[in-house]
């Protein structure tokens, strides 16, 4: 069952195009805590069974793979993490424990930056991630469609948006270089990103960028990134949007909802509210929400609507009680994003640099 209506062929790839899902790891897949040095050390030495995944994420990845396979497509899952490769063994074991199928995982060689005395690179991930994403894209089949998954802790929305615009050919070499310099990306990495960007054939490959609002960042903050970036508060919301796009099956959404209820203490009301929030934010049409709600209600995951009075039902039909809903947002932005405004918002250092004529 597809929730978003028939797909327009002109805007999306052929059904057999492979799907690549690019995932961040910490705060997107894992509930890693590293705001203090003690938490950072604990995270580094945690055993796989001690690591906690974000509720519903493993089921979502399995669902994406299974849904693609049911359509005769290939779905590939890659993780790009800024964590050091030293914790790779533990992460791989955790993914195996969760039964998450993946096709590749890349870590950031922090020791190498330490050895070279590039201390800024330890915390600056834009250059590293862009290089790895572009390398990954060049290694994938040409007609690949992509979905990106990140969180609101660092710069995932910025990194993925830059990546999407590079793939779409919306960022030429000069503005891309200027942008990366403003973010104070290591010049070696800037050169590598630019070189990779010139090799990428221009094609609008990134369908959506999902941002897990782990820090509960106000969703309005992401408006500057355009409709391609979808901030969601839990993986039930992400699953619903993916189902509307035709990337997940209704059964997968139900499974994710059930996991949240059974393992994470979610209630029918919390899922109800999550669904309503998507409609109010223009990420889901009311009719799609109603179509989705019926089977979820039948599965006991959503609560049954309160019986209305006869008068209220009648007025409801006349539209008096119905609020004006926002139009569902299109997935692709009309042009390149206003990165000056984005940097001024997300990078205070870049804001200062912009004020001094672009010098970092």
């Amino acid at each position, binding site marked *: 069952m597809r929730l978003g209506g028939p797909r327009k062929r002109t805007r999306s790839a052929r059904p057999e195009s492979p799907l690549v899902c690019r995932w961040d790891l910490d705060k997107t897949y894992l509930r890693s805590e590293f705001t203090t040095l003690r938490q950072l050390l604990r995270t580094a030495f945690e055993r796989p069974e001690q690591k906690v995944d974000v509720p519903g994420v493993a089921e979502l990845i399995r669902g994406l793979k299974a849904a693609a396979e049911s359509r005769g497509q290939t779905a590939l899952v890659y993780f790009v993490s800024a964590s050091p490769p030293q914790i790779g063994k533990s992460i791989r074991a955790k993914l195996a424990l969760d039964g998450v199928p993946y096709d590749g995982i890349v870590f950031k060689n922090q020791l190498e930056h330490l050895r070279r005395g590039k201390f800024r690179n330890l915390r600056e991930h834009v250059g590293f991630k862009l290089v790895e994403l572009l390398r990954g894209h060049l290694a994938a089949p040409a007609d690949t469609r992509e979905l990106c998954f990140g969180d609101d802790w660092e710069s995932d929305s910025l990194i993925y948006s830059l990546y999407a615009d590079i793939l779409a050919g919306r960022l030429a070499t000069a503005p891309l270089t200027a942008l990366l310099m403003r973010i104070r990306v290591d010049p070696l990495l800037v050169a590598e990103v630019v070189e990779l960007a010139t090799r990428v054939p221009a094609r609008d490959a990134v369908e959506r960028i999902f941002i897990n609002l782990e*820090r509960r*960042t106000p969703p309005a903050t992401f408006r500057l990134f355009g409709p391609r970036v979808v901030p969601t*508060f839990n993986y039930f919301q992400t699953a619903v949007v993916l189902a509307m796009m035709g990337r997940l099956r209704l059964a997968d959404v139900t499974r994710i909802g059930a996991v949240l209820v059974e393992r994470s203490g979610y209630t029918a*009301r*919390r899922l109800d*509210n999550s669904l309503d929030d998507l409609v*109010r934010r223009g990420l889901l049409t009311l009719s799609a929400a109603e179509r989705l709600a019926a089977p979820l209600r039948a599965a006991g995951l959503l609560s049954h609507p309160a019986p209305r009075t006869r008068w209220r039902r009648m007025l409801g039909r006349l539209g008096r009680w119905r*609020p*004006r809903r926002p139009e569902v947002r299109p997935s692709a932005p009309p042009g390149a994003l206003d990165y000056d405004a984005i940097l001024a918002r997300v990078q205070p250092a870049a804001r200062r640099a912009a004020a001094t004529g672009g010098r970092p």
Partner: protein
Amino acid sequence: MPTIAIDAMGGDHAPEEVVKGVAQVSLATDIECVLVGDERRIQEQLEGVSYNPEHIAILHCRDVIGMAENPREAMRRRDASLLVGTRAVAEDRADAFVTAGNTGACILACAKYFPLIRGIRRAALASVYPRHIEYPGQDRFALLLDVGATVRCEAEELVHFAVMGAGYARRISKVASPRVALLNMGSEETKGGETLVAAHRRLRALGGINFVGNVEGNDLVRGRADVIVCEGLVGNIALKLIEGVSEVFTDLASVAAERRLTWRFGLRLLARGIERLRELTDYAQYGGSPILGFERLCIKCHGRSTAQAVANAVKVAAKAVRDRVPAEIAAAVTVVG
């Protein structure tokens, strides 16, 4: 978890501060919040702040009752947020209602949709305010009721207010035996006219509550009593006087500081103490005033409520629901007959 309906459109700073307050609650607690009001305006505000959508629902309605509107005329506007929210509680879609809107309309709405507790004749608006602590185990807030719901009262109604106030203080302030007093013009039991004398006599004879006699106006901010009972007209004047004195004190200090360097210097030295005092007397700290006497709960916030005040009011409402305050009051009324 209790479900609290909140009038998103009521108050001088609505919907901005109300929505911010509810957003704070959604992040910090598991309370289920239902924001009542214009969905589009509420959503606009929500998206600009940190919130947890899992704990927030919106009940859409288009109309709003203004703060200065005639309450009786406002009652005709059935699609106003204040009336829709009250009805939601009456129809069991929420456990309690919180509003910073028009006080008169709020009381009339409660009277229209909520049944009175059996044995209670009139409802009372109870105000929580900070005061000096005189006895060990006392709460830093006292309860003054009625402050405007019932303008003129008979002796029996004052007795009911005492019972309701004591029940509320027992549950919310966790004072096992709250000290109940009658606000009067003297401490002698013969003072204050026929109604107050009769009320004093009945309260003195009543078992089940810790009646400590009459208190005067200057005792309001001392710790002589935890629950102070009076009729609505007197209570409202007393409450506004307390608020007014606090505001004038702050204003005078600011003016003096502008005029004299020595004052400015002195105030700087006292800044931390003054800030502590301001926090203690800040209405935003204690949330709102319960309307007592109904089977359902309503917390009325100050019209000027900030996000913090709204958040505290929602928490107080949830606490009152969890602690089954109306049931406690009903039981107390049954005991005193």
